[in-house]
């Protein structure tokens, strides 16, 4: 077996030569991230695993024609998104409907409920009536508990699909916005609005959790 460098271009070139080590390296590098995004689209782990498997089969089928105009990562995740969408349609999940619902609701939903602000006839209109409280000086110790992680995961799962997709790639995986827009085929502005709604809701879930404990 040939020895392969770690750079993406080298790995892709080696995969084109059908080098097993290159395949295993790419698989290990990306299967966790792919699984996380697949779970956004699929109801069960079993289905998500099938979508990830389909994605890698798509890679093997298409790698000869992959010319590196986009990064391998972007291309890989585009395959995943396409396979996941196709499967959702085949299984009768009306994904397009739920995305539309997500968009419609996104227009009107405030980041913070209106009743937490003063009314317009107040001397300080639209300033805080029920202000947020600090989560403490060492939030990492409280935020990073298993309990909090679990809460955040449940908060994400309750978001509309498009918000889940954006927050998973941007904040959970830490991707730059440009890559997220390319993979999900949305505009920068749309991406930012979805991100704003998603982050606002997760923040609200954390706040509710901390208020309840104190």
């Amino acid at each position, binding site marked *: 077996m040939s020895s392969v460098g770690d750079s993406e271009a080298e790995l892709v070139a080696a995969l084109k030569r*059908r080098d*097993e080590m290159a*395949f*295993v390296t790419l*698989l290990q590098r990306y*299967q*966790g991230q*792919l*699984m*996380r995004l697949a*779970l956004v689209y699929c109801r069960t782990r079993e289905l998500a*695993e099938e979508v*990830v*498997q389909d994605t*890698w*089969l798509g890679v*093997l089928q298409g790698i000869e024609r992959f010319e590196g105009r986009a990064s391998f990562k972007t291309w890989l995740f585009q395959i995943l998104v396409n396979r996941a969408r196709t499967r959702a349609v085949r299984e009768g999940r009306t994904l397009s409907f739920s995305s539309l619902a997500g968009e419609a609701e996104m227009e009107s939903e*405030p*980041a*913070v409920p*209106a009743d937490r*602000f003063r009314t317009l006839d107040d001397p300080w*209109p*639209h*300033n*805080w009536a029920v*202000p*947020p*409280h*600090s*989560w403490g000086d060492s*939030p*990492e110790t409280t*935020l*990073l508990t298993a309990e*909090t*992680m679990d809460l*955040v*995961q449940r908060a*994400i799962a309750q978001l509309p699909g498009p918000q889940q997709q954006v*927050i998973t790639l941007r*904040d*959970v995986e*830490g991707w730059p*916005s440009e890559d997220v827009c390319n993979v999900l085929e949305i505009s920068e502005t749309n991406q*930012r609005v979805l*991100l*704003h709604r998603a*982050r*606002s809701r*997760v*923040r609200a879930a*954390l*706040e509710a959790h901390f208020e309840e404990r104190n």
Partner: protein
Amino acid sequence: MATPDLGGLTCKEVVELVTDYVEGVLPAEMRKRFDQHLSVCDPCAIYLDQMRQTVATLGKLPEDSISQPALDTLLHHFRGWSRERP
């Protein structure tokens, strides 16, 4: 008591601008007003901090992975594919 300068922004407006602020896409003039508001409004400063903590927490979620049998299946497919070399 002198009226504090809130940058001409209400708190209700600030919480809707916070992502644009963190993402660095607020126009310079608006950014200045946002900074001004934050410098005199503790609750909004706390809110911004909570949004940043939320993002940091999201980045710490544990990795997911596919199962060993699924990985084995993929390797099996790869070997089939590499044998049918053109």
